[in-house]
């Protein structure tokens, strides 16, 4: 290989790797079952994700590392998925007694509430390069979001629900999106692949450095621990707002095998095993305390009792730690070249979502807890046990399968048409444990179509995708871990997601 050519190529690779790191770590995005990424690349996405037995561009690092062995040229590529979640929830966040009397706490019910409209981006990039190491081994470096989810909601509005009696400042003091989940797990993957059995079979292995970033804002309605009138309705539950922001690193493996059964038929097996990641960071706490000035002024109370009628906004901070249990997955793929121009592919994936158990936040190192000073100058912390309680967001998900079917048609030397769809089983299909943090209402169907233009050494692709969710109604509260805190969010859920994927690939 010419020395100058190699230097040029390595320079391109270096620049690409740097850009990749920056873009991926600053991105936000969404989707697929649970919080798995919908995929990457216009060809793969245009084929509905049925790409494991095709895997002939740089995105094979995600779908099947073994595909690298059959990539005939060097590639430097990138894509960006632009998401728009168009979800809505008509909340039924009300507790009913046996006679049907409702007891609400300022959540907006019986109105269609929309998630915050945000165009979310999901970038990915990578390159494939043939290096004269171990024969014709193909190496690649890529970065993509292996898991990601992003959504924000606001349901709490005492002003909209005639619940100002709790605290007439509560509406203004509540965070704008008190349900927020930005979860990104970015994989930086080094991939190696080579052929065996006279190029009938290839094996590929990707070693992943996983970087997880979490912004998890939640609202928890805590039982007012006081007795009698102080905790009578509407003061019976105290809203606690938490905003956990943290990150962590982990590792993952991505294995693939591709076998050419004959000239037209490819068979693929892949397995992905991400290891658990411990996330740590900081948490902002915000409690909006009940406001009962008459009770405060007319009744003798302890300092702790006074806090529960004060109407104060209590802000403090802490560190947190939680574990993100990521699900392994296994896949099979078939690809058949019907003609020289037309390829049809079928994938089946099974993801062990039962490993994911939600988040359990362990808090420590509290700063700025509310205190009071007695006449001797001694300072005491007020209601420390109540305010510093660890919180959890448990789930009970099931393992889930996914089937994808896609086609690729080379119209001519310039245009390739793509089409495909998938049926995606929901891990939350058997549980009432649905919350606005993960709007996964049931088994989903995606419909994809796109086109790739081949212009000299450049490929420009665009794919449009629509994901249809079933409507889902959750009617009762559940408390999975018996901590007195509701673990789900009753209501009528509707969801749709639109995605546009743009890609550019340079072959050299």
């Amino acid at each position, binding site marked *: 290989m010419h020395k100058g050519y190699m230097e040029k190529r390595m320079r391109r690779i270096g620049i690409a790797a740097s850009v990749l790191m920056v873009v991926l770590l600053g991105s936000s995005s969404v989707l697929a079952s649970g919080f798995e990424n919908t995929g990457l690349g216009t060809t793969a996405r245009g084929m509905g994700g049925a790409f494991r037995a095709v895997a002939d561009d740089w995105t094979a690092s995600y779908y099947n590392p073994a595909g690298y062995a059959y990539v005939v040229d060097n590639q430097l590529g990138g894509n960006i998925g632009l998401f728009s979640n168009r979800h809505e929830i008509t909340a039924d966040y009300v507790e009913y007694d046996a*006679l049907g009397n409702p007891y609400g706490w300022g959540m907006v019910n019986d109105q*269609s509430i929309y998630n915050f*409209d945000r165009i979310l981006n999901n970038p990915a990039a990578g390159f494939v390069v043939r290096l004269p190491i171990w024969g014709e081994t193909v190496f690649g470096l890529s970065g993509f979001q292996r898991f990601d989810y992003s959504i924000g909601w*606001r349901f709490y509005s005492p002003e*909209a629900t005639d619940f100002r009696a709790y605290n007439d400042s509560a509406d203004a003091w509540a965070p704008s999106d008190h349900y927020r989940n930005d979860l990104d797990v970015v994989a930086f993957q080094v991939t190696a692949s080579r052929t065996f059995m006279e190029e009938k079979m290839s094996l590929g292995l990707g070693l992943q450095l996983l970087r997880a970033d979490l912004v998890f804002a939640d609202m928890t309605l805590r039982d007012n621990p006081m007795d009698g009138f102080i905790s009578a*309705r509407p003061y019976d539950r105290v809203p606690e707002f938490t905003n956990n922001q943290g990150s962590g690193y982990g590792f993952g493996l991505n294995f693939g095998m591709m076998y050419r059964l004959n000239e037209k038929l490819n068979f693929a097996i892949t397995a992905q095993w991400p290891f658990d990641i411990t996330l740590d960071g900081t948490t902002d706490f915000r409690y909006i305390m009940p406001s009962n000035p008459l009770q405060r002024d007319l009744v003798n109370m302890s300092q702790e009792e006074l806090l529960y009628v004060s109407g104060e906004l209590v802000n403090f901070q802490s560190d947190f730690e939680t574990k993100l249990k990521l699900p392994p997955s296994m896949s099979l793929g078939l690809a058949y070249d019907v003609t020289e121009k037309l390829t049809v592919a079928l994938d089946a994936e099974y993801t062990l979502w039962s490993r994911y158990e939600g988040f359990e936040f362990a808090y420590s190192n509290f700063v700025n807890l509310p205190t009071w000073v007695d006449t001797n100058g001694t300072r005491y912390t007020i209601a420390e046990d109540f305010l510093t309680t660890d919180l959890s967001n448990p789930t009970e998900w099931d393992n889930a399968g996914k089937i994808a079917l896609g086609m690729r048609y080379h119209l001519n030397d310039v245009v390739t048409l793509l089409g495909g769809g998938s049926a995606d089983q929901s891990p939350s299909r058997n549980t009432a444990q649905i919350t606005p943090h993960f709007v996964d209402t049931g088994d989903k169907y995606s419909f994809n179509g796109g086109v790739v233009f081949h212009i000299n050494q450049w490929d420009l692709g665009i794919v449009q995708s629509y994901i249809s969710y079933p409507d889902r109604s959750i009617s009762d509260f559940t408390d999975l871990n018996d901590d*007195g805190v509701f673990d789900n969010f009753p209501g009528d859920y509707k969801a749709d997601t639109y995605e*546009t994927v743009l890609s550019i690939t340079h072959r050299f």
Partner: protein
Amino acid sequence: MRTYIVIFAVLLVGLMALTSCEERGTGIVKHDLDDLGQFAGLWPLGDHVYQPELSLQIRNPQELLLGSAYLPAECFAPVKPVPVLILLAPENGDKFHYFKSGLETIAKEMTISGEIEPMVIFCVSNDQLFGGYFYGNSYPAGNYDNIIGNEMIEYLNNRFPNVIDQASARGIGGVGQGAYGAFRAALKNPGVFSSIAVADGPLDFDGADGASGLMDLFPSVIAEQQSIYTGGVPFDFRRDFDSAAAAPISMMFIGGALAFSPNDTAVDYTRTIDYHNAGTDLDDEVVVIVNSRQSIADASLPGGGDSTTFIQNVVGLESEVRNFDFHLPFDGTGSVYQPIWDMWLANNLETLHDNAGVADPLDGVNMLLITNPHAKWGYDEMTDSWGDFLDAQGYSVERHQYVGTENVGDPNEQFLYDIIREMLVFHSRNFSAGN
């Protein structure tokens, strides 16, 4: 090539527009309370002197009945006629009792959302000394029969000239003893109120079977007294009866006894009036001796001051050695003492109904009874029993029940916020129908 680039660009723009779509917002719709006007809200200055009704009420030398009110914007410019609702506090409830559960905000919100029509809501305090006198009628307890459905109406009409002076625009209600007081006022003053909404109270003293109701609490009083007794010698019911706040059931019966079966005690009465608006307080304090030996009860009491259940030296005047004495309707074993119990039963709502002096004294009155199976002291059963009586008389009575959830617990007060809302809607519906 140019063609493909154009197609690509068009596709790009079109699909991007699809993903963006329009900004939907959150979908949350709010009501703006500022639309009510800045003056609508709590008016705390509803205390008023009632003379002679409260002239001999225990430790109330100023003869004041404490009150506060929610005033709608219609009480201020431009003034418009509004109905009035009177809410009576339960035992130990002060004039802000309902406001502590959010009455002001509730009224504002429900008015602005159109759930209720604007109304004056006048809240009456119960007695803070013994918790309450059942809004009964005696000198030591106060002669409320002439206040709630009579003098108070006149006072409200004068104080708030835009209050509609018609029964169809006048409601009353309460919880606990306030529930009893509301019905008592309506029965003593037929035709004054057109709606009554109450929640769990002592509405049937002897219960559905004539042997329950408050009678079930007699042994509890004895047990309560024995539990707080710290004397060295064996507890003696008549000698050691205590009015300590730690004995709430005893307190309730003391209040009731002072209202329904006070002893015929002649007491010295001192009335002090402090005029704050001229000169110094010291110079302006005027002490008026109204009557040095005032008889506070009917001398026809069984045994005079010597009934089996006569209790003395428990309730004292602030500056006098003499005491208001009373008779309890049960003896030291918790057994009913019939001569006194009969005096209580004479004040039972069923009796008051039958002795109202007019046929069907609650005719045309819309009534709502709210109960909670966890209500204290069996108030729910007494309320149900009273509801059954009203049904038997042919009245139309709405009933509603709260049972609570695991979180919303047992005591009545846990539901007051919800009960207030329901009461306001009930009264407002009645006012709208009447006008």
